[in-house]
């Protein structure tokens, strides 16, 4: 046995948590996978499957599952937390009893807490004494990662140390790791792309083609960028793996949960009906609700998110919403100014007056 075998712990035995643990074990890392259910712990340790989330896909035998959080926390210096956003804080608080300041916590969950738009890495900081926190995000569909297809992920943290530790446990021949200091942008994109995934699923459900999908993705990128910049993110993150990269993957693959939800909504099911058939959590639902609320507060215009909101919570038909989005005023691509509105002139009364005359708007005035 190697004297210094690398160690890692994954908190959360859903599909992404299990896939991450599997990936690490494949790379020879001594990994613990924590989950609450004793039953599934037994299943993973004995049958090496996680049928609830990953059907009959075999899980690497090196993955040792446990329901003992203290044991899992003490096992490794680097912990990856992959818990659905709704239960995230509770588990983080429990984890706070067992971790120490030299450990590193990485959130692999995409989503945030609705009330204050709290990002998952913030929750880790708030609930534990650990300061070296970060987030993992990017185009990483669990099933494809499990299948060992080549892919890439982003580890974001203000600390180089955290990025290095993340790369150490995640990088392997089928997964490249990129670092980014813009945690805000990476996490916001990771959460907001779920909204767009629902929209993309709905488009697919209606049989719309590449043009429509491409329009959706590009304009979605613009509105998410506006939103994340208002929260202090770096504009460049939109162009990276956690931005456009994740958007393309989530929206073009029928494997994603939000995509599935969108397709069901397009088929005419209500939100409750569509969700009832799904085992896995579609994070996009909570996200849509929260984002629309905060976009208004921040003064950011997010027409696509609002459209998804109308379908999810307003019971409107997908076709109706697409119709109203398409009939919005035509705009300049980056400044958001409607094409038929005159440029706002400041500093010259003559130019302001002339612009009004040119627009033929002074007739009545």
């Amino acid at each position, binding site marked *: 046995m190697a004297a210094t075998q690398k160690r890692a712990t994954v908190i959360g035995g859903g599909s992404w948590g299990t896939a991450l643990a599997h990936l690490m074990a494949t790379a020879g890392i001594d990994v613990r996978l924590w989950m609450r259910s004793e039953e599934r712990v037994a299943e993973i340790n004995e049958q090496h499957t996680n049928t609830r989330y990953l059907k009959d896909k075999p899980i690497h035998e090196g993955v040792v599952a446990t329901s003992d959080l203290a044991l899992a926390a003490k096992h490794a*210096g680097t912990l990856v937390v992959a818990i659905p956003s709704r239960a995230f804080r509770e588990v983080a*608080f429990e984890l*706070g*009893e067992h971790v*120490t*300041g*030299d450990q590193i916590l990485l959130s692999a969950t995409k989503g945030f807490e609705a009330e204050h738009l709290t990002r998952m890495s913030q929750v880790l900081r*708030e*609930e*534990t*004494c650990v*300061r*070296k926190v970060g987030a993992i995000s990017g185009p990483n569909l669990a099933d494809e990662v499990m299948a060992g297809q080549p892919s890439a992920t982003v580890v974001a943290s*203000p*600390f*180089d*140390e955290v990025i290095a530790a993340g790369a150490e446990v995640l990088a392997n021949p089928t997964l490249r790791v990129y670092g980014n200091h813009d945690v805000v942008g990476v996490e916001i994109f990771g959460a907001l792309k779920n909204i767009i995934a629902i929209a993309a699923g709905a488009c697919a459900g209606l049989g719309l083609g590449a043009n429509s999908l491409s329009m959706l993705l590009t304009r979605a990128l613009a509105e998410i960028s506006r939103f994340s910049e208002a929260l202090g993110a770096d504009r460049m993150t939109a162009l990276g793996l956690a931005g456009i990269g994740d958007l393309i993957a989530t929206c073009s693959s029928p494997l994603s949960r939000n995509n599935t939800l969108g397709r069901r909504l397009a088929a005419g099911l209500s939100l409750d009906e569509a969700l009832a058939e799904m085992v896995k959590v579609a994070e996009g639902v909570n996200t849509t609700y929260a984002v629309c609320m905060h976009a208004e507060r921040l003064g950011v215009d997010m027409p696509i998110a609002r459209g998804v909101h109308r379908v999810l919570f307003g019971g409107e038909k997908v076709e109706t919403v697409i119709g109203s989005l398409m009939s919005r005023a035509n705009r300049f691509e980056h400044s958001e100014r409607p094409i038929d509105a005159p440029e706002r002139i400041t500093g010259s009364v003559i130019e302001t007056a002339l612009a009004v005359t040119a627009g033929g708007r002074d007739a009545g005035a």
Partner: protein
Amino acid sequence: MRNELRDAAIVEVRSRIVDACLKQARLPEGMPLDVLINDTLYHEKQRLERDRQSPTRDEDLAFWEGVRSRLGKAGESEQKEILVRVVERFTEEVRGNFTPWVYDMATRFIPRALPALLNAVSPKRLFSRGLPNIAETIAIDGDVDALRRANERGTVILAPTHASNMDSPVIGWALFAMGLPPFTYGAGLNLFTNPVMSFFMRNLGAYRVDRRKTAPLYKDILKEYAAVSLELGQPNLFFPGGTRSRNGQIEEHLKLGLLSCGLRAYVNNLQKRKERPNIYVVTCSINYQLVLEAESLVGDYLRSEGKSRYIMTDDESSKPRKMLQFVQNLINLESRITVKVGDVFDPFGNHVDEAGLSVDSHGRHIDIRKYVTDGEGRPFHMPQRDRVFTRECGDSVAESFKRHNQVLSTNVVAFTAFELLKKRHPELDLYRMLRTGDEGTGLEMRKLTDATAVVVKALQDLARDGEISLDGKSIGNGDAATIVQSALRHFGTYHAHPVLARRGDRAFTEDAQLLYYYSNRLRGYGLERTLRASYGEAA
């Protein structure tokens, strides 16, 4: 700082800086010694080009000319010698010229000198009211015990808000009144040239900082001096805002350079296995009913922010007038100054409990050594990591500033009046509004009082949640009419133009810039929204 201690600090700083220079020069990415010296020479030449008033200009020019001519043909050992000379010169300046008897006298003299200067410059006042009581002028508030405890358990970095040049003497007195020793403090050279200020600077144990010196080597020396003094157990005073707040707002963006010294000193203490390795950052707010140099501060702010949009209508006040203003202010400073001790943090920005231990948001103890130790428990420096920690500590400090901002009547009324003016001119940008003011029509007193009541109510709610602090004396029971009265009285006494003056049933804005300046202390609390919502109800 006592002379023996200061000499020890200077020796230590010199050896650390020289060692670091030599060490980095050996690295492939490092700066060779001759390049490093040349770079420093370049920065100094540039400075001397700009700074023609410096009293030591000729000396400096000669020194650097000497460096230049020697450097050309210097071999490795001579380069090292030149470096040592340069470092010695910089550290000698930092040290300044202190004498023990001044120090001793100061500690006894400050409590009497300061009230005399604050209150009794006018002989008339001295005769009519007798000796002033400083405790009535400067109120000390907040968790003073926490500061004392921190000072006993470890080494304190006191981090106050920075609004005025009066801050240093005010803090100096406050420390004395709290029974604490004078703190080491890096004061700008300009403060040493003003004879009044210079007196206080020395008494504070200040070392000299020349902000015009831009050479990276010089800045390294200043930071290392602060770190070394902390390691020697000498409490320090840093203004994390860097310079005085120009627009009157509580600092949000902090200068982290000096704050980072705390973490560096802590790691060094751990490495040396010091008995009391802990460094505590204690925040504190200094709040003025009237600010000594408000006019020039806000003028400077508008000039630099507005660029061409701001048009100066008045020349910078000439020197005698400035002195007059200064004296005038001292006389009038019967107005409130409050010093509120805020929170105690570790160098990572975690809260510290009564026992001096760091706690997480749930009050659970944190072993903070683990933030900076390797797998074997050995503490080590890592600049990238430490920068992030310092930034996060800065976030904690900024947030603490906001919570311990102690609101005085002048802030409340200026804020309310300014918002009322904004409501009247929603279409104007700030610069136009400042020039338009109230167009000479003034604000109805009744409206001003009603709106003030709304703001005070909102402030009381915020204060209950611990998000801001209210000055008991000048805000009192929260009666809006009394608060407006108190503010108008103060606004009328000191500034060249009364900020806001009452005539009949109206209050007139005589200086919109100052109104803006005093109102800014209440920005960032969402009070604008509350006030706007109240207009809706009224309509």
